[in-house]
C-alpha cells in the first residue's frame, strides 16, 4: 500500500504534492480523488478502529463513518499537518465519540475483553499469542489506553481527557494492560 509521507527525499515531496492535489480535487467534490485518498489511508484508519474496538465488523463500520466524516470536514483541512495525520485524528474522534455514546448506555454484565482472555487462555494453553491478537483480548478500557498510549503515542493527560477518566486511572490501566500482555505473550 502506498502511504504518502512514507517515501524518502524528492519522492516524499512529490508524494505530498500529489496528495495535496487529490485533497484539493476532493474539496471541490471530486469523489474519484477522494477514493484515491481513501485507498492511501484506509489501512491506518482501519488499524486504529480495529485495535480500539477489538471487533472487526465494528471496526469496518467505524472506518466507513470515519471516511464519511473526513469527506464532510474536508473544507476544514488547512494543510497545517499532513492529510494522513489530520484524517487519522478525525478517525480517532469518530471512534472516541462512538465509545462515549456506548458508555452512556447500560453496561453489560460481563466484560467482553475479560471473556476474550479466558477464551484465549483455555483455547490455546501454553501457546504464544500474536501481539495483535493479545491486544484485542485485553479488557476494553485497558486496551483503549494501551493503544492510545503505546501506538498512538498520546500522553496520559490527553488520554484521560479523551476517555473521560482520571490521569491516574489512565496510568493504572496502562500498567494493567502491560501486565496482562506479558502474561498472554509468555
Amino acid at each position, binding site marked *: 500500500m502506498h502511504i504518502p509521507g512514507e517515501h524518502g527525499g524528492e519522492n516524499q515531496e512529490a508524494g505530498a504534492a500529489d496528495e495535496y492535489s487529490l485533497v484539493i480535487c476532493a474539496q471541490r467534490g471530486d469523489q474519484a480523488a477522494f477514493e484515491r485518498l*481513501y485507498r492511501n489511508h484506509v489501512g491506518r484508519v482501519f488499524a486504529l478502529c480495529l485495535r480500539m474496538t477489538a471487533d472487526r465488523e465494528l471496526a469496518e463500520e467505524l472506518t466507513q463513518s470515519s471516511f464519511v466524516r473526513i469527506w464532510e470536514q474536508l473544507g476544514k483541512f488547512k494543510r497545517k499537518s499532513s492529510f494522513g495525520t489530520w484524517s487519522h485524528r478525525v478517525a480517532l474522534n469518530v471512534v472516541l465519540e462512538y465509545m462515549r455514546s456506548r458508555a452512556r448506555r447500560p453496561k453489560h454484565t460481563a466484560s467482553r475483553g475479560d471473556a476474550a482472555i479466558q477464551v484465549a487462555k483455555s483455547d490455546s494453553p501454553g501457546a504464544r499469542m500474536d501481539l495483535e491478537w493479545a491486544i484485542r483480548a485485553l479488557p476494553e478500557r485497558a486496551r483503549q489506553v494501551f493503544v492510545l498510549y503505546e501506538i498512538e503515542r498520546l500522553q496520559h493527560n490527553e488520554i484521560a481527557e479523551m476517555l473521560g477518566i482520571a490521569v491516574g486511572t489512565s496510568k493504572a490501566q496502562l500498567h494493567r494492560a*502491560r501486565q496482562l500482555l506479558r502474561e498472554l505473550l509468555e
Partner: protein
Amino acid sequence: MKRCTVTEAKLGDHLDRRLSLEESQRLDRHLEECAACRGAYQRLVALRTLVDGLATSIEPQRDLWPAISARLCGAGASHSERERRRIRLAWIVLSAAAASILVALGVIELSNRPASTSGPAQNIIVDGSPALDDSLRLEVAKAEQAYVDAAGDFLAHLKSPEAALPPDTRIVLEGNLVIADRAISEIKSAWERQPSEFALARKLLAAHERRVELLQQVAHLSFATQNGG
C-alpha cells in the same frame, strides 16, 4: 523467585522515562541487584519492541469503498450546497461593492451640480408639497432605521467567533460598509443643504433600501453556511 513489589509499579514509569534522574538511578541500581525486577523490566522492554514493530496499517478484509461511496452521495449534496452558497455569497459581496461605488459616484455627481438648476430638477421640486415632503421624510427615516438594524445584526454576527465568513470576505464587506456609511452621510448632508431636492431624497431612500436588502442576504447566507455546514 518472588518479585520485588516495591519497585514493580515504577518499572513502567522507568520505561516511559517519567522518573526523576535520582529515582531513575536508584531503580537502575535496584535492577542490577534484583533478578525478578530485572526480568520484569526486560519483558516490558521486549513488549515495547514488539509494539514498535506493529504494522502501521491493517487492510480490511473487504473493500469498504462501495459502502462509503453510497454514503457520500448524501454528504456530497451538502458539499455542493456549501459551494453554491459560497459562490452566491461572493456574488452578493460583489453586488454590494458595485452598489456602494454607484452611490458614491452619484454623490460626487450631485455635489458637483449647482444648487438651483433648470430642467428636470425643477420638475422634481414641483412634487414637493409640504404633506408629501413629510411622508417622504418618514419613509427615509424608516429605511434608515432598518439599515441601522440590519447593519447592527450583521456586524454582531461578523464579530462572533462562529462567523462563517472567510476573513477576506469579511474585510471586503467591512470596507463596503464604510463606503456605504460615507455615501449615505454625504447624500444626507446634500439633502439638508437642498431640502427641496427630492432627487436626493429618492437616492438616499434607494441607497438605504438596497443596503438593507444586501446586508440581510449576506447575514442570512452567512448564518446558513454556519448552521447548515
